């Protein structure tokens, strides 16, 4: 195998920190190479350096033996390095075909040749076994197809190096397999692929080698068979795995009182007839595919979407939830799935983000003093181990895991009785994940009832007392968390009722 790309001694300094310190990286032609590390380890910085977004202070990059120094994304693309980002970076209003060719449309008589664009786009998509109408707007299709479109664009540009930055975080199982098939096909054609993901199984499923970074330093490059999963995680976090995986399920006594009860609730879309009960100090997991109705159910419990049938009972009293504020008053808290959009307010400081829910419940006529706010924020910063110099840092500048902790802190400070967490561990690294799980379980220990929504079955099984399984916007089963396996759940999701 020939070496396609090589990065030597890359050092990047930001004011105050060395984001990358003398890191080497190498990629062969026809190889899928995973890049691993916790958030803040320097993966994105390395990628940004390669794509010309960040500029390196020291080091050299060689592509096919020639030194390159990309200074903008455009230049990187021209030298043959294409990137598919986690969030789809295409234009939703343009057609699928146009998204592949915009900026470099084939011309005929100095006019855009639409026939050619559509024909070639169809050819590309059929290579990925997608039989779709490429003339429809991109927004008409699912995220998976949008990702494929993004990859098709990179393929058609004839990229030599393709960087896939968390491409699977919003795909379901089948879509991930489809993506992997495409990746393998591209690899067989001699393309070098850099693959970044938080899903360890996926790394083992598809890559040839992996490079691990930690705190801006290179830990090492290994063949896929050289390291077991546990060894890999240990190298990534630099801590012993026992600390991470030794979590104790919440302890619920059979006679604990029921805090929240939902009877046959449904909303105006298609969610119908969901019933569940939640005991004091219990952790109830919600499993199911994306779009199975997990989030919609949570939103109903929080008053974010209107209930048109059924009733919700909290501590024996029927609740009339018409807006989230009603739920907050009733001590129900909700951390939404998309923390950037619905949770964290990036321009406010950590202190302000944490105090929001407390203040909202107290009412704005009784403002907290600055000292109270600072004390509150500092308490949770220490308690949750939020990595920040002080509580006045803007929340938007924190890493994903730390932002998630700030949202958790916001609701912990509000002392809720019921806490609903929608995908709290999505897109954060394994160390932070374990810590979020630990915090969740600690809250259960102090008597809070928690509803935990996640697409990762292993963490649902690890933490939940009971697991509700959703499928096609219906609750299909409820099983005991301590005595089930991933296979059990997958089988129920695949086949319907237990």
């Amino acid at each position, binding site marked *: 195998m020939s070496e396609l790309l090589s990065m030597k001694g890359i050092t990047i300094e930001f004011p105050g920190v060395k984001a990358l310190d003398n890191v080497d990286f190498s990629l062969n032609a026809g190889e899928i190479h995973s890049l691993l590390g916790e958030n803040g380890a320097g993966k994105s910085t390395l990628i940004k350096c390669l794509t010309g977004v960040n500029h390196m202070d020291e080091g050299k990059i060689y592509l096919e033996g020639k030194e390159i120094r990309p200074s903008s*994304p455009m230049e990187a693309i021209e030298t043959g390095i294409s990137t598919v980002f986690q969030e789809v970076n*295409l*234009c939703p209003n343009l057609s699928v075909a146009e998204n592949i060719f915009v*900026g470099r449309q084939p011309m005929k008589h100095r006019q855009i040749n639409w026939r050619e664009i559509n024909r070639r786009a169809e050819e590309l998509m059929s290579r990925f076994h997608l039989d779709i109408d490429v003339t429809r707007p991109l927004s008409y299709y699912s995220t998976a197809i949008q990702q494929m479109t993004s990859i098709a664009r990179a393929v058609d540009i004839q990229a030599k190096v393709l960087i896939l930055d968390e491409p699977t975080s919003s795909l379901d199982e089948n879509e991930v397999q489809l993506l992997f098939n495409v990746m393998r096909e591209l690899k067989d054609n001699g393309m070098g692929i850099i693959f970044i993901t938080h899903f360890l199984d996926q790394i083992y499923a598809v890559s040839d080698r992996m490079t691990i970074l930690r705190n801006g330093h290179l830990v090492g490059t290994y063949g896929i068979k050289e390291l077991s999963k546990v060894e890999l995680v240990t190298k990534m976090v630099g801590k012993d795995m026992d600390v991470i995986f030794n979590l104790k399920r919440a302890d619920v006594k059979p006679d604990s009182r029921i805090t929240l009860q939902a009877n046959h609730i449904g909303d105006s879309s298609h969610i119908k007839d969901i019933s569940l009960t939640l005991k004091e100090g219990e952790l109830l997991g919600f499993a199911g595919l994306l779009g199975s109705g997990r989030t919609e159910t949570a939103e109903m419990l929080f008053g974010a979407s209107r209930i048109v049938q059924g009733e919700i009972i909290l501590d024996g009293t029927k609740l009339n939830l018409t807006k989230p504020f009603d739920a907050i008053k009733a001590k129900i808290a909700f951390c939404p799935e998309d923390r950037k959009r619905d949770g964290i307010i990036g321009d406010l400081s950590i202190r302000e983000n944490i105090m929001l829910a407390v203040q909202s419940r107290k009412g704005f006529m009784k403002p907290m003093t600055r000292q109270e706010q600072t004390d509150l924020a500092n308490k949770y910063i220490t308690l949750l181990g939020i990595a920040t110099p002080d509580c006045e840092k803007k929340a938007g500048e924190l890493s994903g895991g730390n932002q998630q902790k700030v949202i958790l802190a916001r609701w912990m400070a509000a002392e809720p009785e019921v806490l609903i967490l929608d995908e709290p561990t999505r897109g954060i690294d394994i160390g932070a994940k374990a810590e979020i799980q630990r915090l969740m379980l600690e809250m259960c220990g102090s008597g809070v009832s928690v509803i935990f929504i996640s697409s990762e079955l292993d963490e649902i099984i690890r933490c939940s007392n009971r697991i509700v399984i959703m499928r096609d916007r219906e609750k299909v089963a409820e099983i005991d968390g301590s005595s089930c396996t991933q296979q059990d759940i997958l089988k129920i999701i695949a086949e319907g009722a237990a």
Partner: protein
Amino acid sequence: MHNRQSLLNRITNPKYIMVYATIGIFLIVYAFGAFMYSDKGFLTIRTFANLFIDNAYYGISAVGMTMVLITGGIDLSVGAVASLTGMFIAYGTTVLGLHPMTCILASLVMGVGLGLLMGWVIHYLNVPPFITTLTGMFFARGVCSLISRESIDIHHPFIDALAGWKIYLMKYANGQWVRIRPIAFINFNVILFVIMIIIGTFILQRTRFGRNIYAIGGNEQSASLMGLPAGRTKILVYGFNGLCSVLAGVSYALYVKSGWNLSLQGGELEVITCAVIGGTLLTGGVGSMIGTLFGVLLKSVIPALITFNGNLLSWWGKIATGLLLLLFICIQRFVVTSAGKRK
């Protein structure tokens, strides 16, 4: 294989929904007029041609405005720039004795220059388009009043010839061409409007520059990451809109044959209305010239209906236009949300 060639599939492509809505509502309103006032001659070609003649200057400006709106921006300076063009022509020919072409040339330099400058400020200084072009509007309106605070008539053989030039619509009857009855004609303004619509369509559909406009309106950050020249495109769009404003000003000057510092006040809002009821999304990314053409016709058929009725106050026209605008904003909202839900 998915058959994208099939006619039905092409017709049902969701990207055309807004244009269908515009054309559909125009046909309904027109049919209503035909039903109510056909005895007064609403259905004649003359009435139809007058829709173009009386609104050509708005239409010309709407061509540039559509592009600006597709990028996700807005331009409030178009009315003032058109008015300033009228002042340039009126003051230049009547007071200074210059040839009108010289005045138009100077207006073009002024209008395109101001447009490019505003585009530059919007992109590189990151000032919101609303504020930037509001400044441009006050600037242009101010210069109008500096030139003269009274209306100046335009008397120049060139302008008279251009304004008076018309093509009569003919029909072939009894072996010879005769003018149709009642007499109908189109003039220079109408031809300019139609040419601008054709040029606009060509730019938007057939050039990379045009497609970049859509891409930027769809998601500017993505467009830059795909390597599209976002800055250059935006600056040129505002420049082109400046050109359209000046041509609209020329057309308006030919229509009223005078220049006045307070003419076309609020004209920018009329122009934006035309584009929006023509299916252009104010949030950017969606719009078309054919939609804008029908938007202009739809907006201008309402005053025509009121004239034909004869008993209604002309202000009812404003109310009807307001309702139309509301209707279209609701349709857009519906289309946008239903597109989001399908995922």
